């Protein structure tokens, strides 16, 4: 019975050890580097997987990328240099944050243009309306007369 219980405890603990199998390989002495490592592998996308990041993927290529990130961090690369290094080899696909280029710039420019167009048209309308609403003294007098008559 005691052995049975022990097996149960071990089975319940098994997933924890699974999650920790690789972490031991990539330990940094500097906690800042450790944090940057965690952040980078979280933000890089595995090129072989359907939208899984490098941290979560079991694909061999994801393991290679983790090893590369570890190596480059130790070599003193900045975060941007590391992401660029990956993009150079595995294209924009590996980053979730798409970089600004002549294709993606439209995602920023178009809404701006639309907003500006909308504001401009509203402004022009407002001005037209107010200018149309000015009456000559004569007309104003006539209106006053009519309104008085009615009341």
């Amino acid at each position, binding site marked *: 019975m005691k052995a049975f219980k022990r097996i149960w405890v071990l089975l319940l603990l098994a997933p924890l050890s699974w999650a920790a199998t690789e972490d031991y390989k990539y330990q940094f002495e500097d906690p800042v580097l450790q944090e940057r490592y965690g952040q980078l592998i979280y933000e890089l996308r595995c*090129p*072989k997987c*359907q939208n899984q990041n490098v941290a979560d993927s079991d694909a061999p*290529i994801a393991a290679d990328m983790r090893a*590369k990130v570890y190596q480059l961090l130790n070599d003193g690369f900045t975060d941007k240099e590391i992401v660029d290094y990956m993009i150079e*080899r*595995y*294209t924009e696909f590996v980053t979730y944050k798409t970089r600004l280029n002549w294709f993606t710039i439209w995602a920023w420019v178009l809404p701006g243009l639309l907003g500006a167009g909308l504001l401009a048209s509203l402004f022009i309308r407002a001005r037209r309306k107010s200018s149309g609403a000015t009456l000559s003294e004569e007309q104003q007098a006539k209106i006053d007369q009519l309104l008085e008559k009615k009341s």
Partner: protein
Amino acid sequence: MNRLIFFVPAVFVLVVGAVFTWVLWIDLDTETIPTPLKDKALPAFSLPSVYDADQMLSNADFDGQGYMLNVWATWCITCRVEHPELKRLADKGVNIVGLNYKDSRAEALKWLAQYKDPFSQNIYDEEGTLGFDLGVTGAPETFFVRSDGTIAHKHVGEINSQLWESELKSIYESL
């Protein structure tokens, strides 16, 4: 004229909706990644030969010839499927360089002895370093390299005679 302006949002929504529907409708390939190395030079490397650990191969050994760089491994099932076609092409005089990727030398040698060697040269990339620089995500992958050392095309997956005739042959001949 002024009334027409009220249709602008409706037209806008329809146009944007049509574009989105169209993008969903066409079978957009979101899985294959085009190689960022197209028209760029093959990354610099210095790796041993599969046959001889002391013989180092580097870019200079391949200058002046157009060739296909086939990334393969003994753990790769599709490579086994592809192998007879590579052999057939090699026998016809197609220049194929083998890049043995993340494999064991003993296994690779056994494979080359057993299934015959279609490669003019055999590069042994045990750690997958050249593979990484090439943006290889698995095997088989085949790079078409021009005689000036630039990459013309990358083919992911198996090469079979149908694909060879329909698209790959003309690429090879243009190298």
